[in-house]
């Protein structure tokens, strides 16, 4: 997961950078981090992180692990972990995510759905905490 502070670090080694004067059409499937400052039409899929710049325009369904979106997206967005929508983000489509942050000014025209994975993770975390509490030595002895 990333935040604004480590964003630059994370995208410095981006596998693909689509600059401002570039238009990509078709099914773009990558393995690494992707930065989009230009236009993309079709579909976009990566197993890593996605950064969408302020001037970017995407007409595509998006799938990624994490994403920071500051531009326009027309299509369905599925983010496995963390999605950050900046104040300039304009989303026209349904969004699926595990965790989300939305800055003041972002526009969303679509349905927001928390993916079941989060619930699973929370259940797992709760189970681990309960196990740890049970295993804590000395509590009973001290009493």
């Amino acid at each position, binding site marked *: 997961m990333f935040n604004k502070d480590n964003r630059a670090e994370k995208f*410095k*080694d*981006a*596998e*693909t*950078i*689509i*600059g*401002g*004067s*570039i*238009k*990509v*059409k*078709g*099914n*773009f*499937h990558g393995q690494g981090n992707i930065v989009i*400052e*230009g236009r993309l039409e*079709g579909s976009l899929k990566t197993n890593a992180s996605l950064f969408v710049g302020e001037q970017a325009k995407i007409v595509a369904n998006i799938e990624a692990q994490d994403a920071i979106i500051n531009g326009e997206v027309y299509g369905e967005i599925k983010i496995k972990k963390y999605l950050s929508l900046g104040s300039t983000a304009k989303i026209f489509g349904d969004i699926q995510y595990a965790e989300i942050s939305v800055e003041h000014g972002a526009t969303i025209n679509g349905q927001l759905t928390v993916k079941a994975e989060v619930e699973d993770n929370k259940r797992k975390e709760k189970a681990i905490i309960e196990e740890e509490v049970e295993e804590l030595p000395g509590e009973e002895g001290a009493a």
Partner: protein
Amino acid sequence: MNVYIYDDFLNKSKYNRAINRLEIKLTDLGLNGKIVRLGAIKNIHDAVESEIKNGAKTIVAVGNNETVFKTAAAVIEHQALSFIPQKTLFFVIPIGREDNSIANALGIKKEEDACNTLLARRIKKVDIGVAGRNYFIEKAEMEAEGAILEIDGYTVEIEEKGIISIINLAEKSNIIGDKKPKPNDGRLDIHIKTRSRNESFFSVKSFKIISKGQDLLLDSSVEIKTPVELGVIPGGLEIIVGKDRAFE
């Protein structure tokens, strides 16, 4: 046996001193071999093929980027067309101050230092770029405006003036930000820089360039027509390299 391919521009008197220094150093180090002067022959491919058949173990291009371009192409072509390819090493001795970016990227310095590098025999397999029926070691470049790149399942359209560089090996260690070219990863790095200073980067195994008639310049030496398909021969050439090369 080492075979030294001297480019024809070395016949100019201003290179006499450099060539003399080189030949003295090679003799001192016991590296002397056969010299083939390109000015005296018509076909470099035939010359290189004949030298390899006669037992040349190392082909040394003496000159600049263009010398490397044509000599390396001859070695690669021989390897590709031979039923039983012989293992031939490749080396570059840069002469002159300009147009030696390939040698620089390989960590090979001028004349005498280059001889020490040849003696050290530090060998690396280096990818070779392919553009149609041509080869390149360093990069291919063309004007960007109106060009379309057809990559695996998608197209990239460039709408502004600028330069497309298809990089296999690069002298400078950065393309964009911290990206280091890796001439041994089986991929080509496409770097698009447009007039408005927008930069784009793609790393691909193969693709096709379609353009509005622009030519593609290979290794700053030869222009070819587009459309053309580009790809890479992974580890296509075994090159003797220097310590200060621009890649791992």
